[in-house]
């Protein structure tokens, strides 16, 4: 009996196929029906781009898109900056490392609902007006943790002697940071920006708890429309676009950043 058609091998292949089908079939169907002429998801009738053109005409969707993207960008930039400073401070003061880890890791592992509720109560207590700012603060609160963890790893791979040499050559702290540390951290900073952008862009739970009347992001819009039983082909088109954005970022991330991070670890390690 050949090795490839042994029973265990067959089971293995079936298993992999099943995993792929369960993972990707719903997405494939969704994408397929976003181009379907018929309004109903029961049968395919023909190809159309109508649902996509309708998206662009839908003011509510455009507003939600604007909210989602603006929050994701600002949150990604700010949390990456703060995460970088936190990670760098650990390098300057190693005794802070454990303390900061203890502070930074919980937001990643605490159930999001619990975190979201506590934030909602907090905003209520301080009398904040729910909207862009509260959602942004909510997203940034956990994004800092992701940024910190992503960047800290790479800061450790830079030899402390590199900074010392730069200093001995006449560079003050700021020049060392700008000319040496930041350029060497570029792969980690890019990774952090992408991760935090996607986390914010696709977040639902925290957004629900921290949003206010009249303010919604794309995931909120999708949920509100879908929950009223109006899962139109328009939603399929919207979801398809959101998947596309995530895919592009994740492919860029894995192809470029992960390899770069790996290289820099090898070079400096």
């Amino acid at each position, binding site marked *: 009996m050949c090795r490839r058609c042994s029973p265990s091998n067959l089971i293995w292949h079936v298993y992999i196929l099943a995993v792929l089908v369960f993972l990707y079939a719903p997405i494939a169907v969704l994408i397929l029906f976003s181009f379907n002429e018929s309004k109903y998801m029961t049968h395919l009738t023909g190809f159309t781009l109508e649902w996509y053109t309708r998206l662009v005409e839908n003011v509510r969707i455009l507003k939600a898109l604007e909210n989602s993207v603006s929050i994701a960008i600002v949150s990604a930039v700010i949390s990456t900056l703060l995460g970088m400073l936190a990670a760098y401070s650990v390098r300057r003061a190693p005794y802070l490392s454990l303390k900061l880890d203890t502070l930074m890791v919980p937001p990643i592992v605490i159930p999001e609902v619990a975190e979201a509720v506590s934030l909602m109560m907090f905003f209520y207590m301080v009398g904040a007006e729910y909207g862009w700012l509260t959602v942004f603060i909510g997203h940034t609160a956990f994004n800092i943790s992701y940024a910190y963890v992503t960047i800290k790893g790479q800061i450790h791979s830079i030899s402390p002697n590199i900074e010392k*040499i730069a200093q*001995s050559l*006449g560079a003050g702290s700021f020049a060392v940071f700008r000319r040496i540390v930041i350029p060497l951290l570029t792969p980690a900073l890019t990774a952090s920006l992408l991760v935090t952008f996607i986390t914010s862009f696709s977040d639902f739970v925290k957004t629900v708890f921290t949003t206010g009347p009249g303010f919604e992001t794309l995931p909120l819009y999708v949920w509100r429309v879908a929950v009223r039983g109006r899962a139109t082909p328009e939603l399929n088109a919207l979801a398809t676009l959101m998947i596309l954005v995530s895919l592009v970022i994740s492919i860029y991330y894995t192809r470029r950043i992960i390899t770069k991070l790996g290289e820099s670890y090898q070079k400096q390690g």
Partner: protein
Amino acid sequence: MRGVEVRLENISKRYGNTVALKDVSLNVPRGSLFTVLGPSGCGKSTLLGIVAGFIEPDEGHVFFDGADVTGLPPQKRNVGMVFQDLALFPHMSVFENIAFGLRVRGEPEQAIREKVKSVMELVRLDFQEYAGRMPHQLSGGQQQRVALARALAIEPRVLLLDEPLSHVDYSVKILLLEELKRIQREAKVTTLYVTHDQSEAMYLADYLAVMNYGTLEQVGRPEEIYDSPVSEFVARFFGDINIFPGEVAGLGGASKIGVRLERTMLSKTEPRVGNGIVGYMSGRIVEKIFQGPHVLLKLETDYGSAKALLPRAESSHYNVGDRVFILVPRTGLIVFRQRGSGRY
């Protein structure tokens, strides 16, 4: 380039309960190549860090040409450094690495280019071929040259080298030591070279300091330290030596006597004391190790093990298992007392 005279005065440094440096005073003459030799953990890197300005001493002062620089941060000391891991900037080309110090000083582009060219010439790296390369595209030896060129480009007042060759293969190391010596002579820069490798120290040093447990055991010219080590530690760490228990007439009390391996003589017949021989003992050859021009003989005696380094031709008379007499000559005899020593 201008080198300065570096003077350390009563430097002490503690880390918690550990004493890294204890009351160290040192004078490094202008333009000299000064080597600090000591085992790992003896405080020699701390000493270098204090001269560079990365470490603040608990007590004591650092002077460059008589001016107190103790409180000055590293970026204002104008000191060139090379570390063991070289720490080239991995994201910059060879040119940018070497130009870094000049750029942060805001030198004009044309001056930077000329300076980089001239230091690359000094360390013998071809400008056309290497200026545009990235550090990871260079061999280990070339990386060493870039690191040195980067340190020299700022025309440092002092050049500090922290075990720069300890990761280099032996054959490359010899070549780089020669180069380093030449470059140091040409640049006339005061250089402090820290190492745990006595062969590097012997090869390079104009002056040498042997360090142990945070103190300078002995400072002097290499020949002086080799011929008259003040302690057993110095004698063993700088060169190799046979040490036997012995009493020296006129000194009183117990002492030890030391003989360098190449001065230790062997004889197959029982010798007579006098005529340049102050004593002898019998022993047996247990091992014969070929070392190129010399042969190292390991011996067992009633007073412990001993070694003798013989020219190859002479060594052919001796074989493993032979009973021989080990002769202690008058010339080169080193006497160790409780503290301090002298030549007999």
